């Protein structure tokens, strides 16, 4: 009974001591956190530190947790509580009573009663203050305030860190897109099982690389590799489709030449042939037209590609119906040309594949930008591993070398049959290694409108031509890679904001992706 009473009075005191310690340790943890945060904040002004505020918040949580954990570890024992209470004028009554808790002798009983009597009277709340240490709190406040002030100092490193953060976030988005593409690929009926597996493997590898990212250049390399792989698969599918279509078209006399040009991916020849066919149609008599219409209808029913089949069917219907409407015939023939051109450009091969190409392309660009950012800030020496460019001129691709402006997006850019289908992997040049080029100060900025006044004409009026004034041609010599990046960024913005044909978009993207820097 006496023991129970003793613990009954000690329990709230114990809790208060625990609370006091918790408050104290949390105050110290806050001070440590504010010191660390300030150090981080100062370092971030000189070295780019990404996700700085997230890191500071994480530190806060960590210190908070450590404070709570440490106070729990240091929770007072009853013996400790007894000693603390005794130090408040109880003259070791409580600690003795605690030690005598199992002693049933008369003197022990009297001693315990005496201790409890004193415990009842004590105002422990006055003796055990739970106020946090003022000096520590003030110190923390000053440190936090200093940290906040430092955070307002804008430096190049801080801005770079923010840009890297944006890139990282973009990479994360791309990762999610890759996951979506993987699902699209799975559902794609145009791809064989092996092709699906191969693409999925490549995408998975890329995803893992992003997950375990240590350096942007590694992700870039992997993105280029994946992009190349998907492009190769896409090209194979496209080739197969073109060959099949060419074979189908070759089965008919009227479209035989068209089939040859299609097979050779000769865009110019194809267009010329369509013009010839149109002329031929105009020259045909009724019987020939009737016969041709019938054959074209039969051909359209044999052709698998629904678009081409539809166009041919339209031509057949048009010529059998109203041969006198040359505009309608020209329109149909133009449709045929456009459809075949699109097939040559690889459009509508597979939604999943197109998406995969676009995602890997985007990822490649983002990481390249991040590498460039890192390089332009790290100012490191160039003694590191320099990756040689594997694309461009060194590529051992399957370029057929027509070099026309239709620009297939699968790397048929070589003019000598050794055209590079490989994309270039950015080398790890540092700023010092890049040749400096002159960049005008108006690079990447909008010009101002200004009117150019002409001389007075005979009627007395004056011609005023409105032009965009690009400002004074001033600028500075900056590293090549920075100039390229500015141009690239502008070009991508243009692609996104303006109506540009899909095929041209790809050409622009390919140009910047393969450009060596």
């Amino acid at each position, binding site marked *: 009974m006496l023991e129970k009473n003793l613990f009954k009075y000690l329990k709230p005191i114990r809790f208060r001591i625990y609370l006091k310690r918790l408050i104290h340790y949390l105050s110290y943890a806050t001070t440590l956190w504010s010191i660390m945060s300030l150090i981080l904040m100062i370092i971030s002004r000189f070295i780019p530190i990404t996700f700085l505020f997230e890191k500071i918040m994480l530190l806060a949580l960590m210190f908070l947790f450590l404070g709570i954990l440490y106070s729990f570890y240091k929770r007072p024992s009853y013996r400790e509580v007894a000693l603390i209470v005794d130090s408040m004028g109880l*003259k*070791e*009554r409580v*600690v*003795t*009573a605690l030690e005598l808790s199992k002693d049933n002798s*008369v003197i*022990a009983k*009297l001693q315990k009663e*005496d201790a409890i009597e004193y415990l009842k009277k004590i105002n422990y709340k006055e003796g055990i203050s739970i106020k946090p240490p003022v000096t520590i709190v003030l110190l923390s406040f000053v440190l936090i305030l200093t940290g906040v002030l430092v955070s307002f100092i804008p430096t190049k490193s801080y801005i770079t860190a923010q840009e890297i953060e944006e890139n990282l976030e973009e990479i994360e988005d791309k990762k999610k897109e890759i996951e979506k593409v993987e699902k699209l690929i799975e559902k794609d009926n145009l791809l064989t099982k092996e092709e699906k597996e191969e693409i999925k493997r490549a995408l998975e590898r890329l995803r893992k690389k992003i997950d375990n990212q240590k350096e942007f250049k590694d992700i870039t390399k992997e993105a280029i590799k994946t992009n190349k792989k998907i492009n190769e698969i896409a090209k194979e599918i496209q080739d197969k489709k073109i060959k099949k279509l060419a074979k189908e078209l070759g089965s008919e006399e009227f479209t035989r030449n068209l089939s040859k040009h299609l097979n050779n991916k000769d865009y110019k020849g194809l267009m010329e042939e369509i013009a010839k066919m149109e002329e031929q149609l105009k020259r045909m008599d009724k019987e020939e037209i009737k016969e041709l219409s019938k054959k074209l209808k039969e051909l359209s029913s044999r052709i698998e590609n629904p678009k081409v089949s539809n166009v041919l069917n339209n031509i057949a219907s048009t010529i059998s119906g109203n041969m006198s409407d040359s505009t309608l015939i020209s329109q149909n023939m133009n449709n045929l040309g456009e459809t075949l051109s699109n097939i040559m450009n690889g459009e509508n091969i597979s939604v999943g594949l197109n998406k995969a190409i676009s995602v890997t392309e985007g990822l490649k660009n983002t990481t390249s930008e991040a590498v460039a950012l890192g390089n332009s800030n790290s100012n490191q020496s160039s003694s590191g591993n320099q990756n040689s460019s594997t694309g461009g001129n060194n590529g051992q691709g399957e370029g057929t070398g027509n070099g026309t402006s239709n620009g297939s997006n699968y790397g048929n850019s070589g003019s000598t049959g050794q055209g590079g289908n490989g994309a270039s992997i950015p080398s790890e040049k540092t700023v010092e290694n890049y040749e400096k080029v002159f960049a005008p100060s108006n690079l990447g900025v909008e010009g101002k409108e200004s009117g150019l006044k002409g001389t007075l004409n005979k009627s007395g009026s004056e011609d005023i031509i409105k032009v965009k004034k690009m400002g004074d041609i001033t600028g500075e010599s900056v590293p090549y890679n920075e100039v390229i990046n500015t141009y690239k960024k502008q070009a991508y913005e243009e692609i996104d904001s303006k109506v540009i044909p899909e095929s041209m978009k790809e050409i622009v993207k390919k140009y910047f992706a393969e450009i060596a820097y």
Partner: protein
Amino acid sequence: MSNLELQIEKTIEKIKKIRDEIGKGIIGQKEIIDKTIIAILSGGNVLLEGVPGLGKTQLVKTIGQVLDLEFSRIQFTPDLMPADIVGTNIITNEKGKSTFSFQRGPIFSNIVLADEINRATPKTQSAMLEAMQEKSVTVGNKTYKLEEPYFVIATQNPIEMEGTYPLPEAQMDRFLFKLDIKFPSKDELTEIVNLTTGKEKDRIEKVTDRKEIIEMINLAKEIPIAKPVMDYAMKLILFTHPENEGSPEITKKYVRFGSSPRGAQAIVKASRVKALMEGRLNVAFEDINYVVYPALCHRIILNFEAVSEGITSKDIISEIINEIN
């Protein structure tokens, strides 16, 4: 209310009365009176040190009267022999037959006042050893048990050192407390003069008796002492030893020999009595701090450096207490 409870209350009351009654005969010196009572109820011996005329002898006489115990006084002189203290066998003629019979010396008493103990030769001083520690006396081949309670209160004069024999360490260690008697204040001195030169004198009355004193001594032994308090007392002893690793710098520098285990026993025994005197049933740190000076001062042997620099045992103890706290 249990018997023990009653006994405790009675003891506390008695101690208070003893203190008041002794106070009638000794003006001032309250601390000396308290510490002497503590030493007596701890069953220990006391060495009183002070210049002549400070009431050392008077104090012992008063204690004897108040406690109603048998009191004897031995004036130590250089020619005092051990037999003069412990007694001797003498030839007696009983019924025409001469036999040796033991003639008890003044040591056979309850309170023995060994006045100016340092004036006797070491041989004579040593005669007290057995009585002080074992509470027995051996003469020839016969040992005589001394009657309980038994304690020796010795006095010595610190200034007149010529023709004296300083007590050896072994002898000093037998004293539970060594108390320095200070010169009284002006008011106390006036009161002493008035009391001793006037007509009226307060009559000293006995407050207790032998049996009650033994009961009080036994009761004090039951006062519990908590482990942290006991640890503190033991630390104090260990820290007086220069060879001990954790000892403070002052000990290592100025102490030649630290306290013996008797010092630890003295602290614990005396602190129990101190707690009881306060009406407390447990020993507190402050009890230890109260008794540590008289219990250890004479047990710490300082080196030459300390003596030359004027460092005292009290300084050492104070520093040790600071160090532990």
